[in-house]
Structure formats: C-alpha cells, structure tokens
C-alpha cells in the first residue's frame, strides 16, 4: 500500500448520556490511500457514523468528545488543529456527503450559491467566477441545463438531484478525501446505482480517496476496495474487499453474510439469522461485544475483549477463536 492519505490511530469518541458515559468509537485504527475506497460497514449503533463525524471533528461537544487517538491527514494530526484551522480543511481538502440530502441543503439559498460558497470561501474566488465553477460542477454531476439550474432552490429538486448537488458541493474544492455517510439510503435503488456510480467515477477521475459508510453489504461489494466491519464501537474485521467476502474471518461478518438474502442465492434456502440483538453501547459486556450472539463464544470471550490483530497479511480480525473457526470452515467445505 502506498503512503496513506489518512491514517487513523486509536481513535476513541465518548458520549455522556443520561445512562452514563458510553464509548461510541473505541480504539479504532485504519488508513486510506489516495484513490482508494474504504467502506465502513455496520448496523445502527456500531459507531460507523460517529467515526465519520469524528474525522471531520463534527462531534457535538457536549455531550460527545474525542478522548484519544490521532487522525493523521497528509501527516498532520487533525486533533491538534485549532477550530479555525479545521474549518479551513473542512469542505476544502476533506468533504462530507450526508445521508439526508433534504436536510443537509439550505432551503433558503439557491443551489448555485451553495455550491459556489466553498469555492468563494476556500479559494477566495470572486462570486461571479465561483458561479462559473459551480456551473461546471453541476454539469459534472450530470444535472442537465446547469446554467439555469444554478438559480433554482433545493425544494425544486428530486431526492436524486439533491444528492447530486451534495456531491457537486463536496467536489467543489477538489478534496483529497470524501467521506460519504449512507449517501444513498434515502434513495430508490435505480437512483442509488446512478449516484454511487457517479461518485466512484468522479473519485477515480480526481484521485480522491473515498470513505463510504453503509450498512449495505451489496454496496460494499460493488464499490469498495477495502472494508472495515464495525460492531459495538470497534472494528472487528478489516481486509481487502475480495478477501473479506471470500474468507470472512470474524463470526459477526460471517453471520451477516449468511443472514442476508441475495439475488443469486439458491431460492428457498432458509436464511441463517444472527440470534439476539445488536449491543447497547451503554451496557457493553466486559468481553467481546459479539459474544452474547456468537455460537463460538466461550469463557475467554466473556472475560476479555479480543484485540484486532493481523491474521494474514492485510487481513485483520478481533476474535479469540479464529483458529477454531478456520478449522470449522475447512471441515464444512
């Protein structure tokens, strides 16, 4: 792997809640190389969105706080920057695309103004020129009739067009890193394919790295180069996408893959659900967060949390029993 653009080391984000302090992101480390797509997958409460917000330093404080770790972006620790310095980076070298295009666009500003704003702000470009850039960006995200669209309002746009606008805004200053948090969850499936294809194509063109946060294992398979699987605030497995799907090592990853129906699975086969519920972050078990739902769990699993370690070159897993599981797999094959 080439030198990483972003290197996250031992990131920990905690929230103070009525029910006590909880650790939403717990000792998370990963890196992203230029031009690569890293998918962070997990269910609700796994910590994937809080990880994204932590990278942007957008955790509301109080109740949240990044309590430890480093976020090295182009070698510079973002956690050491002042708020003003961070504002210079946000929307310029790191851009974010949110899940809800409806609520993340300002309804009282024209689309053109919202796309031109980061260009004006970060590039100190006069508005007239910034509008020209905005027009080019709208064309780039394939919104037809871009020149006249600049003067329209978000409410006149469909969901897909709003998300295209969000992408245009994100691309405005040619960021090195784009973080997309469930960018297509609110959209229909044919539009989802259009938007993700577009995002992927544009990152390929500009060489930007993409962090794609999603719960959809199909989307990950189609678009990601690397995958980090989160559960209970931690990364439980991390690998190159092909390796993760071909040889999932963590029981949670394997459970997820067995529990989803696929378009190409043999029909009529029963799904194998993961028993139980996702964990409550305020009441995590002392050992492995997945232990209460894991068929391989034993005393060791409830006693101590397994560390993420390299199982094979480039394939990390956090499980006390990956040897036993391997034996189990080869037996089944």
């Amino acid at each position, binding site marked *: 792997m080439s030198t990483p653009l972003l290197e996250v080391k031992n990131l920990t984000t905690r929230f103070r809640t009525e029910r006590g302090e909880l650790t939403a992101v717990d000792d998370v480390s990963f890196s992203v190389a230029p031009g690569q797509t890293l998918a962070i997958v997990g269910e609700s409460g796994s910590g994937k969105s809080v990880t994204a917000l932590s990278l942007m330093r957008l955790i509301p404080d109080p109740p949240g706080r990044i309590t430890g770790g480093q976020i090295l972006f182009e070698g510079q620790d973002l956690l050491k920057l002042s708020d003003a310095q961070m504002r210079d980076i946000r929307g310029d070298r790191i851009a974010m695309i949110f899940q809800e295009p409806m609520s993340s666009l300002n309804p009282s500003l024209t689309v053109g103004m919202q796309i031109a704003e980061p260009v004006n702000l970060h590039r100190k470009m006069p508005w007239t020129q910034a509008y020209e850039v905005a027009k080019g960006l709208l064309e780039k995200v394939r919104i037809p009739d871009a020149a006249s669209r600049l003067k329209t309002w978000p409410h006149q746009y469909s969901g897909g067009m709003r998300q295209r606008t969000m992408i245009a805004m994100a691309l405005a200053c040619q960021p090195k890193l784009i973080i997309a948090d469930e960018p297509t969850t609110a959209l229909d499936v044919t539009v989802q394919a259009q938007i993700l294809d577009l995002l992927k194509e544009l990152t390929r063109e500009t060489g930007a790295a993409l962090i794609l946060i999603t*719960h959809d294992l199909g989307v990950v398979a189609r678009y990601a180069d690397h995958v980090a699987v989160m559960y209970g605030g931690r990364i439980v497995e991390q690998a190159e996408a092909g390796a993760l799907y071909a040889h999932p090592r963590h029981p949670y990853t394997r459970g997820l893959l067995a529990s989803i129906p696929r378009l190409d699975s043999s029909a009529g086969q029963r799904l194998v659900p993961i028993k139980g519920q996702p964990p409550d972050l305020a009441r995590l078990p002392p050992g492995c967060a997945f232990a209460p739902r894991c068929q391989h769990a034993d005393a060791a699993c409830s006693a101590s949390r397994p560390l993420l370690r390299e199982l094979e070159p480039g394939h990390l897993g956090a499980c006390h029993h990956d040897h036993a599981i391997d034996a189990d797999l080869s037996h089944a094959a």
Partner: protein
Amino acid sequence: MPETQALLQVDNLKVHFPLPGAGLLRRSAGAVKAVDGVSFSLHAGQTLGLVGESGCGKSTTGLAVLRMQPVTSGRILFEGADITAQQARTGTFRRRMQMVYQDPYGSLNPRMKVRDLVGEPLQVHGLDQNRGEYQDRIAGLLKTVGLLPDMADRYPHEFSGGQRQRIGIARALALEPSLIICDEPVSALDVSIQAQVVNVLQELQERLGLAYLFIAHDLAVVRHLSHRVAVMYLGRIVEIASRDDLYRAPLHPYTQALLSAVPVADPVVERARQRIVVQGEVPSALRPPPGCRFHTRCPQAMARCRTDDPALMDLGQGRAVACHLHGGQGAGGARVLPIVAEPTAA
C-alpha cells in the same frame, strides 16, 4: 387457463387522488393516478411480492385491498366475495385479512401492554368472553412468533425493533386470517435482525397456510419470500411472473434495470455482472409520460413507445408483461439478459 379459485383477485383496480384546483369553483385540476389499472390474483398459502420504487403505487394497492383506501374503480374479490363496496371498519372480511406495518415503533400504541396489543383484535370481535381461553390464546400467539408468554405484561418500549415486529405479527395472527398484507415489514430493521423476521414469516406460512401480499422495495427479500412477483411502475404492473422466471429472465426493461441496480454481496459476482443503468428518476405520478410510462428512462425505447401505451400481455404460464418488445406484433429483437449468472450447483 383453468385454475382453482384465487384467494384474492384484483381486477383493473384504480385509485385516483383528485387534486383541488385553484379558482373560484375549485374544480378538480386532474388527479394523481396512484394506482391505474392493476390486476393480479393470489392463491391460498402463496406469497405475491409487489415491488417497485417509491411512488409506484404498491402501498396504495395494499391499502385498497384492505379497504382502508377508497377505490376509484375496479373490483376486489376475497375468498370468493366481492369486497369492493365493503369498508375496513365494518367489513366482515377483515377477520380474514390482516396487515403488518413497516414501522415497528409507530404502529404499536406505546401505552398498551403487549397482552392488549395482541388481544385487541379478539376484543373487537368479541372473542374475549372466556377469560381463560383468551389468556391462553394470547400466550399461544406470542409463542407462535417466537416470544415468551411472560412478555405479555410488558410495554412496547421494552422491546427491540425485531421483537416489536413479532408483536405486530402476533396481533395480525390473532383472528386466524388467511391473508396478511405485509407492507415493508423488515425494511426498518437492522440487517442482522431482518432474517429473524423473514424466517418467522416463512415458518408461519408453512404451518398455517397463510397467504402474503408482500410489498417491498428490497428485491432480494422479495425473491426469498415470494412465489410470484409483480413489478409496478407509476401505478401500473409492468411485469408479473413466477419468482424464478422473473429473476432468471426478466422481460421488461424496467425489471431488468431494477434487478441490475441491486448490488450482490460478492465482489467477484459484481465484477462479472453485466449492468443496465437507467437514467433519470421516476416521473411524477401527476403527469405520467404519454405512451409507455417507462419510455423516458428506457434504454430500448422505440418510436411507438412514446405514443402507444402497451397493455399487459399474457405470455402464458402465468407470465405477463407490458412492453412493446414482447408479446405484440413484430416483437423481435427483445433482449433478455440474465441478471446474475446462475449459481453453479454444488
């Protein structure tokens, strides 16, 4: 085709929502044709999947069948009786037709105990006279959906999303229906929980011979649960077929595009797939395009698609498609792509 009488038969169903017009007389300025001529049938013990993107009319169709939505025209036959004129509140058919909703949080009254949520349908129909039998029935229903009988005295907030959906299913089962309309019953649940509810639905069908009208946008879940599948677009069924026919060789370009858009959780399969990407988004149901409603996005649209509205043509073997490429005169050159390579038999 000679066939046994269907449990549910819907003929040329139309549900239009008139729009109040401007001006003094407030004359109607047209109508949103949410459901515009939909026909299908569903047999006892079977599942019909109803799929399509938002605004295609799938949920409205479900509500119309339940008689919770006034019907503009058409006919709904259930267990041999015409229920088009009946109403949800008073219709006697409602003991035999129930609904499971999408949102397990919004669809259960937070101030009612599970016992009362599950028992309410029995109370409404006066089946709670014998207290002992009534309590046994509730305990039995909870067990049926995989909950513990002693959970009956808890409130909904004490349950997770998956468990709440089970409560919703137990409530739907209380009156021993023959048909359950499921509107996106798993889409609000976490991925690892969806399979639990899907399996409960499957087991109940096998055990109790239930029929499901399964409304969903997730094509993989629909494939997993359905015997037959109808694809809707802008108020119409564009293709209806047996599950295997539809997923192996979709005929309508929209079905092809829809299936093609769904990613498969396997990078190897994804790389090898041929994909059909349609442009644009679903047009407004207020002004559906003339001719074939899909022509504005169809990669195979021809001149006549812009003017002639294709009828749903019966191709035999329970398969029908509404497309000029198929069934009509001069239907040559139709392209049929396998959406995903057939899994190799182990």
